[in-house]
């Protein structure tokens, strides 16, 4: 047992923190206000190899591990929740499925440019009528000769406007028991009939690009199907397990930012002749915040470590995602409380953290779904 980060992991942490403090944090409030997606920052992140951390060099990646990747997500999230979400989605949802399930040709064609940061990637699962119930997917892909013809729509798909391709789940047939077979298909975003819009006015993670996808007779070659066409459902469950580690890391980063602001503020704000950090009620809040963040971070590292070791990590990823997102919400809420009325004002930037972190309890499986996943792992 060794709880210390390796030298590489420490160096990655320092580098990403340094980068995020200089290139992201100073602009986060503005990007939130204007719902601006900082594409130029992603270009720089690509040049530094951040978009390819968990992929091998032969696919344009940096050959790092999941722990390093989680560290990077935390540090970017600490600077800006929206940028953190788009970063996590690009790597975990856009690129990872192709790395896990793609053919060598698909990896060369689609993964390499993503790992190098030349394009982002997206994963389109959710539909207006199929959220938690992903099996209820209505988008269809019908084989016509050598091509799939796709029809349907997807909602709230992160990064699609900045991606060369989106991995889309669609019903491709029925099995012996009459259940829908769901496949994952790589769809280039410039294919005729494929419309991408980004008109959502979001509560938080506003620097993240969130899109509506519409498919009208979109034709893609048959070989764009990802992995086993019959196992699309299983594949995205595995993809989401990995994604949950990154959402948990993102929650830790956002909570850390809120905590640091609250701690500093508590040491400066004077009421009744002393700083409010001298009041036990405030101290207890800060103690709980620091403790919960550290516990969540340890769970993130453990889940990431299990994944790196090739061991089962479904339950631990859900533990991490569920605990980190709910503790993060508590922490951001208390950070506002410690700031009092100032915390309610945008200028102090803690209210943004609360708006940003709320998504962590919803995206990549709601808290309720995490509890279902855990219960299922317990054999219920």
């Amino acid at each position, binding site marked *: 047992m060794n709880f210390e980060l390796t*030298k590489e992991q*420490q*160096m990655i942490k*320092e*580098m990403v923190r340094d980068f995020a403090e200089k290139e992201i944090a100073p602009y986060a409030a503005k990007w939130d206000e204007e719902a601006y997606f900082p594409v130029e920052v992603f270009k720089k992140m690509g*040049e*530094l*190899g951040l978009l390819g951390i968990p992929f091998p060099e032969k696919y344009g990646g*940096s050959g790092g591990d999941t722990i390093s990747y989680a560290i990077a997500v935390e540090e970017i999230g600490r600077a800006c929740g929206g940028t953190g979400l788009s970063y996590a989605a690009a790597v975990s949802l856009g690129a990872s499925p192709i790395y896990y399930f793609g053919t060598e040709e698909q990896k060369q064609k689609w993964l390499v440019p993503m790992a190098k940061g030349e394009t982002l990637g997206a994963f389109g699962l959710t539909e207006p009528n199929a959220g938690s119930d992903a099996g209820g997917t209505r988008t269809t892909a019908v084989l016509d000769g050598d091509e799939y013809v796709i029809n349907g729509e997807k909602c709230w798909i992160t990064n699609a406007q900045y991606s060369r391709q989106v991995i889309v789940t669609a019903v491709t047939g029925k099995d012996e028991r009459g259940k829908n077979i769901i496949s994952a298909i790589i769809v280039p975003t410039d294919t005729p009939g494929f419309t991408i819009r980004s008109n959502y006015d979001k509560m938080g993670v506003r620097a993240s690009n969130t899109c509506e996808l519409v498919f009208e007779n979109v034709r893609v070659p048959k070989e764009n199907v990802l992995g086993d066409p019959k196992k699309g459902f299983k594949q995205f469950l595995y993809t989401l397990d990995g994604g949950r580690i990154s959402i948990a890391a993102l929650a830790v980063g956002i909570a850390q930012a809120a905590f640091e602001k609250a701690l500093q503020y508590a040491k400066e704000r004077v009421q009744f002749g002393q700083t409010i950090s001298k009041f036990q009620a405030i101290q207890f809040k800060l103690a709980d915040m620091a403790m919960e963040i550290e516990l969540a971070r340890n769970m993130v590292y453990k889940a990431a470590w299990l994944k790196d070791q090739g061991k089962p990590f479904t339950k631990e990823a859900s533990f991490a995602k569920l605990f980190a997102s709910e503790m993060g919400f508590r922490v951001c809420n208390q950070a506002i409380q410690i700031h009092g009325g100032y915390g309610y004002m945008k200028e102090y930037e803690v209210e943004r953290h609360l708006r940003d972190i709320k998504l962590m309890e919803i995206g990549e499986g709601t808290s309720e779904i995490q509890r279902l996943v855990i219960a299922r792992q317990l054999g219920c």
Partner: protein
Amino acid sequence: MNIFVLMKRTFDTEEKITIVDGKVSEEGAEFIINPYDEYAIEEAIQVRDKHGGEVTVVTVGNEDAEKELRTALAMGCDKAVLINIEDDVEEQDQYTTAKVLAEYLKDKNPDLILAGNVAIDGGSGQVGPRVAELLGIPYVTTITKLDIDGNKVTVIRDVEGDEEIIETSLPLLVTAQQGLNEPRYPSLPGIMKAKKKPLEELELDDLDLEEEDVEAKTKTIEVFLPPKREAGKILEGEIADQVKELVRLLRSEAKVV
């Protein structure tokens, strides 16, 4: 070109300094590459990329400095050398460091040596110039621009906000001032490659030095923090009385008039 960078591991600028047993406590402190040395590293890499050759980053310190050396390798240096004198030398000052570095460098035929202008902890700015003196090569401090053309070197030097343009020649030692360049972030592939790059560890013995040869020339008598800033005094009453009181305080308490 044979390029060397002198690098120091220092306290993070954001650390709060505490003193325990007459020494600055390092307990739990974060350490970084001395920020001025980062400019030196960046410049060395740029010079190498333009003129060819090899960059070796050297530090005098203990094994904890390996992380900062690896970071320099991750930025793009080719080789690293850690001269670990922790077990051999009890009291160390700028003379010690310079002497050790000069002994190491004297048979390496350096064309260019870069160092930071000052280290943000000790703040003496002596090590670079001392090394150059010991090696008998020219040096220019606080540079903000470096141009190398064959053997000829043109340097812009920051002199308290003004610029001095100096022509000199290789071999040369320069110390980097803020503004020389914008240090790069170590890239992910750089970080991953850094662990495979050579990092040599040397001790005094390997340099044929004895402890007496490098003994500190200075003695630290006392280490103390600047006095705590007291809350200001607000005088009250009639203006005339306040002025009288102020003059009295300036005389008797502050003793400035």
